[in-house]
């Protein structure tokens, strides 16, 4: 895999000057990022860095204050509902907690996008679902309910559902969070396999350093709503930026204390 920012390759996700607020509080402060075909881009950052908000913008679940998000060439906030639905059939999402529908079996969960967006007959859909379950090593578990699965199996089932329509673009939210190291490593391998075997472009949002370094072609480091850097794994590791080094070495930043501001915070509204 070519690790340099590949200008010659097709952009799959283009984010331009993305600004967003919760109320008056700025969450993202002008993000610019392009993700290319066939690469795994890991969006990394600590709690409150804005990475989950950024993901929600990429998925079209939030509207930005300003800026544009183009997914597969289409401005996700400007296209019609019908076009958005079509676009969404070309992307897959594996949520952090799996977001499997608890009232449906694992097999039904995985078949759902096929059932809703294709005219395939029941047996073809079942075979396609089983194919994806084979890919994620969950063969034979289709009749179980999500509540009967372990944490790692839920993540796998969520991945199977995300790829059942053979998307061009896959988003994974914290794929290895809450898993033991062995299972986490297996999920990372699976993500690499999806890129290599199916040629997917994959966006992974995570705070797990090891996982990020294992799978990333490029890493985008977010901090307090800004992009600190976008570079290859080696580039991020070699960065001299203090905040990046703090993140890599799991050091907390010492907050600079402004006595007047501190006093104002303590006495506000009293």
């Amino acid at each position, binding site marked *: 895999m070519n690790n340099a920012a590949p200008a010659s390759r097709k952009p799959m996700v283009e984010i331009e000057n993305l600004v967003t607020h919760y109320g008056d509080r700025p969450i993202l402060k002008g993000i610019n990022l392009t993700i290319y075909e066939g690469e795994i881009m890991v969006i990394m950052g600590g709690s409150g860095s804005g990475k989950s908000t950024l993901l929600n913008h990429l*998925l*079209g*679940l939030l509207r930005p204050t300003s800026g544009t998000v183009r997914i597969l060439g289409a401005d996700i906030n400007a296209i019609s509902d*019908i076009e*958005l*639905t*079509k*676009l*969404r*059939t070309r*992307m897959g*999402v594996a*949520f*952090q*907690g799996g*977001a*499997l*529908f*608890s*009232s449906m079996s694992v097999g039904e969960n995985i078949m*759902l*996008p096929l059932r*809703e*967006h294709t005219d395939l007959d029941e047996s073809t859909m079942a075979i396609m679902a089983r194919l994806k379950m084979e890919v994620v090593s969950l063969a034979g578990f289709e009749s179980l309910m999500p509540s009967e699965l372990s944490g790692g199996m839920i993540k796998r089932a969520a991945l199977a559902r995300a790829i059942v329509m053979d998307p061009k673009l896959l*988003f994974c939210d914290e794929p290895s969070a809450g898993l033991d190291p062995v299972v986490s490593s297996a999920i990372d391998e699976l993500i690499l396999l999806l890129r290599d075997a199916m040629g997917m472009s994959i966006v992974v949002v995570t705070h797990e350093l090891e996982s990020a370094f294992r799978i990333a072609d490029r890493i985008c480091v977010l901090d307090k709503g800004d992009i600190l850097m976008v570079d290859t794994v080696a580039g991020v590791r070699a960065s001299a930026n203090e905040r990046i080094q703090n993140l890599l070495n799991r050091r907390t930043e010492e907050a600079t204390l402004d006595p007047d501001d501190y006093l104002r915070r303590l006495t506000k509204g009293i």
Partner: protein
Amino acid sequence: MAVLTQLMETVGRRTMAGLGEIGYAATLLAQSLFWLVMGPGRRQPVRLKAVVAQGMEIGVAAIPIVTVLSITVGAMLAIQGIHTLRIFGAESRVVFGVALSVVREFAPLITGIVVAGRSGSALAARLGTMRINQEIDALHVMGINPVRFLVAPALFAMLIMLPLLTFLSDVVALLGGGIYVSIDLGMSLAAYADQVIEALTLDDLLHGLGKSAIFSVLIALVGVVNGSLVTGGAEGVGRMTTRSVVHSISAIVITDMIFAFMLSR
């Protein structure tokens, strides 16, 4: 002065929030109708299977409790009616009172309250849990409209099942009243049935069933709105489920009073 300002601010904020929820409910209703009509054309129909599944849960599973409560309410009305009319020596007129009050008031009201408690709350809890588990987000990103997939089937199932349950409640409550009347006044069930048929018009029956159709929309929308507003994990689900039951029963009783005022004077 500061207290008054704060009070007005609170009242204003809550009023705005309440109006916002009513607006949201109206939007959900419009969207559900949109998907019912336009869904097939967009190759995204409201699934009959989902409507049937909801219908079984809302309607068929509620038959035992509706039956028990209706027979009890019917008998209770007969007991109270005979007790009151005895003062005037007019016990035999009890059938008239039982028939009208069951069909116009008690059957739709009791059924509405039971379904609000059973299914309205379940709907709020289900949607709330789905929301906090990101299942609603998952539907969005899969290109599946949550209103078409979750709200419309529940709404239409409710709209079909509540009038049917109300009709069952009509029959059972009248039977309950009849059993007591036959025991207390020695009237045969056949004579009782004759008097019931004589007392009731089609208009009375439609009055009750029409109300139950409106109640069904209220219960579904209140459940969905409260489920959609869940924040803060499992505790939030519990809070909004309770709120859903309280709101839908209040909405039913108030709507019932408005109906009685407008159509019974």
